[in-house]
């Protein structure tokens, strides 16, 4: 008896689709033990997640509220993935995007709603873009590792926003809480059905569509794909890879920055501490699970939205820490990576001895 590992010549569609689903299932199973260890019945917890996130109009609207920033940040990270560039800084880009949008909302004095929205959108877009662009520049110019730079800049972005809301931007009427003044109605996105759901969700879907068309139907999108699959070949073909790296990281950060706009204009109506519970990190899983497809990003973002809303209710019901969702997300990634192995390789059990 001997275990033999060999490469599959072709991978059937069944295996391609069933392994990721199976790996999420196994992750749920293993996470069940973590729940058991902290004294919560896993079945009750999973039932609670589904009911809370999908069982009512309100629950569904909350899920879409959480899905919205996940789509933006997921799209940003997955765009960079296309070119084998790692943008781990979507969290920070979201924060500086929110900061840019807040600056316009509080200090520009624009009176017209649509002008205001456009200005806030672009402020967030460029702030997020430039923030990631720093890493893009360093990577393109000196080949500095973009994983570390984008990640460390998350800490700087969050501290910078903290500095503003504890200091110069603090609401004078806010009883000393770390938050800015509320936005006027001019600077708010439309809300629907008496819930917290806002038009940022549709903007996110629109972004996904634009990005899909950009990648699949334009020369730039084609260049990104070519550079992503073979940088040397792209250089021989005369493509400016350095410029492309900067541009892709800029755009990737810009989309993540728009998440910040959508959060402050649609949901919170002010800049405050703890703006994001880690959407930018969840975005990495989303991009990895979606295998670079924009539609995939939307679907996976929704699933992660369910998990986040469910996680919030677990926190309320059983006092589980919010960060528990991270442990779960980490497990999903572990099992996904492991499942990739079984997509590429086949494990065979051979009876009897093998003559080498």
């Amino acid at each position, binding site marked *: 008896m001997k275990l033999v590992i060999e*490469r599959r010549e072709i991978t059937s569609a069944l295996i391609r689709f069933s392994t990721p689903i199976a790996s999420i299932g196994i992750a749920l199973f293993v996470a069940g033990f*973590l729940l058991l*260890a*902290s004294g919560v019945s896993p079945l009750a917890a999973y039932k609670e997640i589904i009911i809370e996130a999908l069982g009512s109009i309100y629950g569904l609207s909350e899920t879409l509220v959480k899905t919205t920033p996940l789509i933006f940040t997921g799209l940003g990270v997955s765009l960079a993935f296309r070119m084998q560039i*790692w943008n*781990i800084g979507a969290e920070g880009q979201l924060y500086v995007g929110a900061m840019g949008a807040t600056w316009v909302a509080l200090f520009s004095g624009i009176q017209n709603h649509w002008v205001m929205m456009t200005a806030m959108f672009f402020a967030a877009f460029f702030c997020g873009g430039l923030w990631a662009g720093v890493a893009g520049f*360093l990577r393109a110019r*000196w*080949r*500095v*590792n973009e*994983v*570390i*730079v984008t*990640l*460390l*800049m998350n*800490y*700087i972005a969050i*501290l*910078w926003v*903290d*500095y503003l809301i*504890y*200091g110069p931007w603090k609401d004078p009427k806010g009883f000393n809480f770390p938050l800015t003044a509320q936005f006027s109605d001019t600077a708010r996105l439309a809300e629907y059905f008496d819930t917290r759901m806002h038009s940022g969700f549709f903007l996110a879907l629109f972004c996904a569509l634009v990005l899909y068309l950009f990648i699949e139907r334009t020369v730039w999108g084609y260049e990104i794909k070519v550079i992503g699959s073979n940088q040397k070949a792209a250089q021989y073909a005369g493509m400016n890879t350095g410029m492309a790296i900067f541009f892709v990281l800029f755009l990737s950060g810009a989309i993540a920055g728009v998440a910040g706009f959508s959060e402050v204009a649609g949901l919170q109506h002010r800049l405050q501490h703890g703006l994001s519970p880690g959407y930018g*990190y969840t975005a*990495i899983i989303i991009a*990895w699970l979606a295998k670079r497809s924009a539609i995939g990003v939307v679907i996976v973002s929704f699933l992660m939205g369910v998990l986040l809303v469910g996680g919030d209710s677990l926190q309320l019901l059983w*006092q*589980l*820490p*919010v*960060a*528990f*969702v*991270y*442990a*779960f*997300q*980490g*497990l999903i*990634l*572990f099992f996904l*990576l*492991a499942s*990739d*192995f079984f997509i590429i390789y086949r494990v065979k059990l051979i009876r009897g001895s093998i003559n080498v």
Partner: protein
Amino acid sequence: MFEILLDATVRAGTPILFATLGAIINERAGIINLGIEGLMLIGALAGFSGTYWSGSLLVGVLAAFCASFIAGSIHALITVQLRGNQIVSGLAMTMFGVGITALFGKGMVGLTIDGFKRVAIPGLSQLPIIGKAFFNQDMLIYFSFVLVFLIWFFFYHTLWGLGVRSVGENPAAADTCGFSVSRYRFFAVTIGSGFVGIGGAYLSLASTPMWIENMSAGRGWIAVALVIFAGWSSPRAMLGAYLFGGITAMQLRFQAMGTTISAHILQMLPYFFTILVLVISTQRLQKGASQQPEGLGLPYDREDRK
């Protein structure tokens, strides 16, 4: 004044030093480990609970090593045996570490233990200027000095060390010479992760003898960047870790003196300097004499051998 600052530098630099040493062992074998931040947290919680339950600091440190060793074996299994993506697996480890320590550490918040105490080394601690900072410290700091030497000795003067370096530089050649690539890589990742865990335990057993959720606060990522600064060498890791300890010490000093500069701006300094150092050391890397292991980040499949 200078003596106090130097003392604070060493104390703030030690957790980063352990983490950087652990990361160097990983990367020397060719495996990128971006899970350092999560492994530090796992070590910090395991160390704290171990000491809390047993009353012994040694048990705490061993618990930290073992817990991170086991967590590191997940990364090793995925990246070495299953040839999965090292970057994603490391990020998953960080998320997993943050989450699981928050979950299991909930009951530990607010508890206290007797942390590591200073032990003066007779004679050496009387040296002017450096005596107090380096030789009137706790046992874990002395252990870190020894570890820096041991790792250097291991890599350059033992056969196993040669094995680790060769599976990192050229796994196909190492395989041909009879070094088991998967075994060397697996144990480099797990043992390296164990030392990262001790770095975490330093936070919860010596720096502030208590467990705080997410107490590593980005130190793991600074360690990842310092590996490049250190050129994958353990003595240089010491220099890098103390450099960052120094920045942290100065930042705390500024805050204690009550400057008008916002605490939030001061807290940015270590991250800002890490990026700066990373840019400079990457440039040095490119001017030839690259210390980076050739096989870093590449999975090894014997069938791909040319």
